[in-house]
């Protein structure tokens, strides 16, 4: 079975189990909404202040969403040792990671899409005129978040202090994604024509490097 097909089968399973239980999406969406509302209480935003500080707060909220959502990506496979069942299958080990990365990407993107209108209202930012470039930045940043988070979720799931370990591993590694995404978003909100190619290229390179690294070490990551 090809890598893409196996990843597709695993992605379909992830979507089916999540939309059936709705544990992760519901919890994360509510948590991130609370975070973004609480952030909005910390200052009284004028439009110019929002454009300066809003993107940082928005991406911090996404980061919190990621660390909460990605935690369970591999923890769920431990209930009945289903990770062993996946590893028993004659598929490329990276397809397990790829399927989960794709699922996490979609879940995070869904939460982000729910969050954006709330952010626009609370922070007095007009997002519609910049929606195209913003979605591009969101997509690239979220790929980085989902790829890195899924890999570290696989690592942390086998550790004893797994709930603490994932944020400890994830947040420093994701600092470049956070900086690049925030800077790119600030540029877009300031002037849609100011879409920074430097930050976009940086995000794309981060995604490619991390996906390649995950592909190379995927087999070892999933071993006991």
């Amino acid at each position, binding site marked *: 079975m090809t890598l893409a097909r196996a990843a597709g089968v695993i992605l379909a*399973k992830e979507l089916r*189990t999540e939309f059936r239980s709705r544990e992760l999406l519901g919890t994360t969406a509510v948590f991130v909404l609370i975070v973004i509302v609480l952030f909005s209480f910390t200052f009284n935003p004028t439009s110019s202040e929002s454009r300066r500080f809003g993107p940082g707060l928005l991406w911090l909220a996404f980061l919190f969403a990621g660390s909460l959502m990605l935690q369970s990506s591999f923890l769920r496979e431990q209930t*009945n040792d289903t990770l062993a069942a996946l*590893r*028993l*299958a004659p598929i490329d080990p990276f397809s397990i990671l790829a399927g989960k990365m794709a699922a996490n990407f979609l879940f995070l993107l869904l939460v982000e899409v729910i969050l954006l209108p709330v952010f626009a209202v609370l922070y007095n930012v007009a997002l519609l005129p910049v929606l195209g470039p913003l979605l591009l930045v969101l997509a690239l940043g979220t790929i980085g978040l989902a790829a890195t988070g899924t890999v570290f979720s696989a690592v942390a799931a086998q550790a004893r202090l797994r709930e603490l370990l994932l944020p400890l591993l994830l947040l420093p590694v994701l600092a470049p994604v956070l900086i690049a995404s925030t800077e790119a978003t600030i540029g877009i909100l300031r002037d849609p024509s100011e879409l920074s190619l430097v930050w976009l290229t940086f995000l794309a390179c981060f995604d490619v490097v991390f996906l390649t690294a995950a592909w190379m070490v995927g087999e070892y990551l999933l*071993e006991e």
Partner: protein
Amino acid sequence: MRWSGVARSNCCAIWSRAELSRVSAPLASSPNGGLGNGPAGGLRIQFSEVEKRYGMRFALRGVNLAIAAGECVALVGHNGSGKTTLLKIAAQLTRPSRGKVSFFAGENPIPPEEVKCRVGMVGHHTLLYEELTAEENLIFFAKLFGLADPAEKARQALEPVGLAGRAADLVRTFSRGMRQRLSIARALLATPGLLLLDEAGTGLDPEGQHWLGATILRLRDSGCTILMSTHGRNETQGAVTRAIRLDGGKITHDSGAGGNPNEVLVMAAVRDSGEEGQP
């Protein structure tokens, strides 16, 4: 064991002893039962100086073992003696720290990437998704194994384990015994030439144990190589052709390919019952 109404009706239909041969027969002869290949389908395994360490602790020490195609080997020993580790290494779930494991179909070595296509395993855990139905679980694994017509394969696999009537129910609503039967159906989905059973009888009631014994016997007779860990004597041991005792990660007794496994099995049963009797 308590059963829901639907499950009870299934059980009555499936688990009565008069029906056992009928029940296990479709498993053996169905295309998904994995037994249509005949004796040529069984794998030969060779463990050479296999050692496994977890940190400073040895789980296996210099295991040399050759298992011929079609053998049904019982691994006995105390908890922590290395049975599960040996099975995990055979399933390629864990790598040996030293030594190697080779697989052969007839005289031809099988490339490592092809071994997984021909191995089925029932583990300590059920290896099933609780948020999926019984049918969805089997379809999912059938797809991962690249089987043609996964839905039909799943349907065929559910019939002999007595879960056809519960195909659309979530696994989390199943009893332990039903999960175990579904786990066995999952392991048999992809026509295994090597079946690894890690205390597969766990959670099964006496009728279930009897069915498992009959199924293993049928699989063995059709040429499938079986390696199973077990405690003491039970219904599954009627099929055993060879027994190996592990102690501290080493093979201490081996009845051999043509030997009498009962001596090792009885010895294990006596030791286990002796331990149970201790305060």
